[in-house]
């Protein structure tokens, strides 16, 4: 039975999305990450059963992505400094189905660990050829591909001698309000993992590994750029719809 026929039969029955286990969800209050202390709510969250509002969501992207938005090395007159990389992967839902034609937005520091952002005061050089902002849509199989340079680590004053591991921020919509995800992609083997409270706010080790890209020789372009693979999994759906009153 296909989903549309099921929905047509039940009228406004709603098939919700599965909730992730606690080990995969960082807590709001995580005192080692100091900024959570005044921003985390102190009251427990209220469980919200999924309604049409939560299982629908913005399907954005067409017309929002320019021709060079996926290539962060070609957005200025010259080439940015740093180690050229390709970041590619597939966006899937929790049932292994590709999420096609969905918008990805990325942003990152330059090779020296500095963001092209007025708030960033790290005394590392800005790169006039690197803004560090990209966008793309997944294809029909949920695949995406960015070209960039490997971002540097940077200090962030959270605690004595605090450094963030190198990372690229990812923002995704999926196809439902509940699938919205903002996360960070890390690089394999980073020695800063053990010292980073943001990375460790995800308490389950297997869940943390899902934020780490894999080096992928098959995506590496000889004489040109190293390849990394980063698949992203959005929440999957409940098996059965919420019953509707007759």
């Amino acid at each position, binding site marked *: 039975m296909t989903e549309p026929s099921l929905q*047509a039969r039940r009228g*406004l029955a709603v098939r919700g999305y599965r909730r*992730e286990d606690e080990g*995969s*969800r*960082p807590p709001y209050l*995580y005192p080692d*990450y100091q*900024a*959570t202390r*005044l*921003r*985390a*709510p*102190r009251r427990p*969250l*209220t*469980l919200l059963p999924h*309604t*049409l*509002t*939560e*299982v*629908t*969501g*913005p*399907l*954005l992207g067409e017309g*929002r992505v320019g021709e060079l938005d996926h290539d962060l090395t070609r957005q200025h007159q010259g080439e940015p400094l740093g180690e050229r990389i390709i970041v590619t992967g597939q966006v899937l839902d*929790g*049932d*292994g189905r590709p999420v096609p034609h969905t918008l990805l937005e990325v*942003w990152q*520091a330059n090779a020296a660990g500095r*963001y092209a*952002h007025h*708030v*960033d005061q790290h005394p590392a050089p800005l790169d006039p050829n690197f803004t560090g*902002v990209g966008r793309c849509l997944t294809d029909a199989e949920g695949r995406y591909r960015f070209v960039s340079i490997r971002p540097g680590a940077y200090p962030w004053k959270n605690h004595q001698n605090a450094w963030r591991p190198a990372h690229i*921020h990812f*923002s995704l919509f999926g196809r439902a*309000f509940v699938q*919205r995800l*903002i*996360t960070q992609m890390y690089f394999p083997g980073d020695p800063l993992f053990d010292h980073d409270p*943001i990375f460790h*706010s*995800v308490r389950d080790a*297997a*869940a*943390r590994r*899902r934020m780490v890209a894999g080096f992928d020789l098959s995506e590496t372009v000889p004489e040109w750029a190293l390849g990394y693979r980063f698949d*992203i*999994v*959005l929440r*999957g759906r409940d098996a059965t719809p*919420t*019953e*509707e*009153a007759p």
Partner: protein
Amino acid sequence: MSAATPSQTVGPFFSHALPWPDGPYVVPAGTQGAVWLRGTVLDGAGEPVPDALLETWQADPGGRFDHPDDPRGGTAGGFRGFGRCPTDADGRWAILTLKPGRVPAPDGRRQAPHVALSVFARGLLDRLVTRVYFADEPDANAADPVLAALPAPARATLLARPTSDGYRFDVRLQGEQETTFFDI
């Protein structure tokens, strides 16, 4: 079945990447009946949060979503339903939109008009989700299953108050008047 990629904070350095020029305009300026939904985001010390990003998702005035999973068909005129606005130096945000209509609840009742709201910020390892209801809809609010399940003080934090050009909805991340946030 595979587990989802975990959330991480949006951090402090997104304002050159995520805001769109048309982000706050769920409907174009000049749209008949459009209202400004405005507010301030405050932290546990009562200080404005100048580096948050707010996103909204809502039905059109007929209570329909621009989405194929809304089994009742599309919205009139492709209503985008989505808004995105960063807070300014004083923690303020605003979106221009149309007040949504009532949306069916799974149990057969109808939900009161509401806007789903996400808050992203440095210091939030995952987004916070709340709902904006409208204080000038007392009958619909009284019949809303989500509001009905909340104690009165928690319910009160979800009501946007009418203003001269729309509605005001402040988000208090923490403290006495803490906004009611949902686990979705």
